[in-house]
């Protein structure tokens, strides 16, 4: 009920802004208001998606901690949902890898379609982490 009311108020604000677009005197202000509204909405959506990423990552970490199978670890439903987030999840995954190292390699391979880990480094987890963190820094995902 509360959400519906908010949506109706948002719709009204957008309608008001759109009606002002037709009036030259108000066009600039109306466009600025629309742009600000869009930016705010985008930012709220990003924050909500990142919260969801954190929830899924914690669930996956908890439920796979005793598994050895790389495939079983990667096929966990929460991990698959994270892969489904696509490019947007890359910086969050890299930060997780940096702060709470875990098996993020499959997800990074699937999303980026790249592989900075050499054949000699396969299974050598610290080296794999370093390779992906360097990859992330080189591409501006990490400081």
């Amino acid at each position, binding site marked *: 009920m509360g959400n519906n009311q908010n949506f109706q108020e948002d719709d009204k604000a957008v309608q008001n802004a759109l009606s002002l677009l037709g009036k030259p005197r108000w066009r600039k202000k109306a466009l600025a208001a629309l742009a600000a509204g869009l930016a705010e909405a985008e930012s709220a959506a990003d924050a909500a998606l990142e919260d969801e990423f954190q929830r899924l990552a914690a669930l996956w970490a908890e439920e*796979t*901690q*005793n*598994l*050895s*199978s*790389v*495939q*079983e670890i*990667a096929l966990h439903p929460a991990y698959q949902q994270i892969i489904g987030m696509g490019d947007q999840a890359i910086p969050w995954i890299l930060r997780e890898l940096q702060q709470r*190292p*875990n*098996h993020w*390699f*499959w997800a990074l*391979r699937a999303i980026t379609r790249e*592989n900075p*880990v050499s*054949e000699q480094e*396969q*299974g*050598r*987890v*610290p080296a*794999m982490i370093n390779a992906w963190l360097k990859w992330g820094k080189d591409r501006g995902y990490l400081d």
Partner: protein
Amino acid sequence: MGLDIDDPGFSFRQHGGFRQTSPTSLDYNCIAWAAGFDDAWWWPDIVGIGFWPKGVPREQTREAFVAAFVQLGYNVCSGGGFEEGYEKVALFEKNGVPSHAARMVTDGPDKGKWTSKMGRNIDIVHDLQAVSGRFYGAISVYLRRPMITRRP
């Protein structure tokens, strides 16, 4: 992290519990630990994330896992009882797919018990059947080799 003696995925309560012997580590897993290594995550995954010995098929089959241990001097044997002069490994399967490996402790007060690395969790000493259950399934193969090397 940590391991709960009442975790319904295992059978610790029915088989004597477990004793933790290491902190958690992402550096190695049960297959590496059973093989005598603690510096790599061994797994024959299809995309090449895990380490897998050269010359052994990179596939999740009993044959491939046995071949990996054969390369280390092991041969399939009939049981998991202690035999003087031999070290043993037990492979587990869940739904027909390899899931876990445990290695027999061959000296000290835990002689005859088994040691397992639990995923990226801790190492434990336990009775062999204690790790059977929903997570790892059941024992599929025993292997043994003459005791020739010292474990890390």
